[in-house]
């Protein structure tokens, strides 16, 4: 446990010493700032059927840009150590592989969480400025950030897995981006194709479709099923990451 903390501290520090975290932070702030402004302008035009929270998080283009964050945060985690050979110095100390995997993952999760702090503050700021006139449905803020966190847990674990597969950061980034995007778009297209495909198929896919989850959570409804879905998949990919590392090392 102590070793996990030692490794975690070092990984977190490494994130904030490199320019990557700040570039990603800037990207996310631009993205969420722009979305927020767009949401505000929709409400300015007249009364609408969505709250500001829903208008911020529902446009598709917001989500498509969102997926750039994951490769940027995770591509270096395992691929760099493999390429530089520092796994050799790391794994000749009494650390367990799972401690290495978990420490890197948790550091990425913490950095990811920090990224969304400014946008969260935006909502509170607008609420304060309009003296409470702006409608924020109860639970929608918490719901939105909860689904953001859950999706983050899932996609970061995919990024870790992709990074562990190769020593080339670019390849890791591409694999991670493609996988995350495929998952999101897959759900989206099936829902859009709704008419052409059988009802039951659409029902099943709606469990996996991220956009459905987003719609639910941003309107203030907290459904534990997607939470379980994302966290269990995250655990799966972390376990796979662990296996990849172990397999490479212990090949007889």
């Amino acid at each position: 446990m102590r070793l996990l903390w030692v490794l975690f501290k070092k990984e977190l520090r490494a994130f904030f010493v490199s320019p990557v975290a700040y570039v990603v932070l800037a990207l996310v702030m631009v993205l969420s700032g722009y979305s927020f402004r767009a949401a505000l302008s929709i409400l300015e035009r007249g009364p609408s059927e969505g709250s500001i929270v829903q208008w911020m998080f529902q446009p598709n283009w917001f989500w498509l840009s969102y997926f750039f964050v994951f490769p940027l945060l995770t591509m270096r985690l395992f691929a760099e150590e493999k390429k530089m050979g520092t796994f050799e110095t790391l794994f000749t100390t009494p650390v367990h592989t799972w401690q290495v995997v978990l420490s890197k993952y948790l550091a990425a999760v913490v950095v990811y969480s920090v990224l969304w702090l400014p946008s969260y503050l935006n909502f509170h700021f607008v609420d304060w400025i309009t003296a409470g006139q702006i409608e924020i449905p109860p639970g929608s803020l918490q719901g939105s950030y909860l689904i953001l966190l859950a999706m983050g847990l899932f996609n970061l674990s995919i990024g870790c897995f992709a990074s562990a597969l190769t020593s080339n950061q670019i390849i890791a980034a591409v694999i991670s981006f493609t996988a995350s995007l495929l998952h999101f778009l897959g759900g989206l297209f099936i829902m859009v194709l709704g008419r052409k495909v059988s009802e039951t198929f659409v029902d099943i896919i709606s469990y996996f479709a991220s956009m459905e989850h987003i719609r639910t959570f941003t309107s203030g409804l907290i459904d534990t099923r997607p939470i379980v879905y994302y966290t269990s998949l995250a655990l799966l990919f972390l376990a796979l990451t662990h296996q990849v590392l172990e397999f490479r090392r212990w090949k007889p």
Partner: protein
Amino acid sequence: MIDVQDLTKQYAGRTAVDRLTFQVEPGQIVGFLGPNGAGKSTTMRILSGYMPPTSGRATVNGHDVFHESIEVRRSIGYMPEMAPLYTEMRVKEYLRFRGELKGLSGRALRHRVGEVMELCTVTDVRRRLIGHLSKGFRQRVALADALLHKPPLLILDEPTNGLDPVQIRQVRELLRSLKPAHTILLSTHILQEVEAVCDRVLMIHHGRILANDTPEKLTRQLRAASVVQIEMQAKGNDVLTKLEALPNVRKATEESEEDGWRMITLRVEAKQDVREPLMDLALKQNWKLRELHRQLPTLEDVFVELASSDRAK
């Protein structure tokens, strides 16, 4: 301290380590000597718990390298070839991090980090980014890292690689000072290093051990001929024939001539000393002798001979 039995490591189509068997006693400095690709680094990686053998057993400090990997790693300070380090960290903070990984903490950690930085003369660069250090400094940081938790066994892969002669000497003195509290297994392809530092030599080639002995015994056992060099002045064309007529002289060759002084090399049968009969002959023939020097076989000769006879097998 180390007990290796029939250790084998195979990669696809290639045997890197071939049924290696050897022991290392506590408190010794043992040198792995061999050309590049001989299997030195692979053996060291297996011993430090980084990768498993294909077959065979190895125990370090009583713990099996495969089944008790964590305990083995606790007793070891490992320094890989090419000293891979985290380039974005500073020296002191890297050493602090490594110390924490190895179980040190608090004041003991800070004190020990200062100590190893002194030992490896990297105190002056402690605030510099590792990425900005020269190879020599990085090598010494890696060495400091290996020493941090005072491990009973040090496994060093080419520890003086990339160092200048002054630094090399410092490192060798440092290694010698670590006896007998520490046991050291180091690998190198520089023969003077082995002669200067090691108690025993393990010569390895194509993954097999060619020799396992002290440097002195190995050179004494050499079956290769030794060489005697003389610089002389003599009249007459039959000097070479007369020299070859001496017992135990295989061949006499004139290397060069300058101002009447001739440099002649004699190849002599193994373990025979022709210097006395040579002096007698020179006195009798009234030759002027300016230099008489016997070149003892070096470890390099031993190695080349063993390696070529191994290839012939």
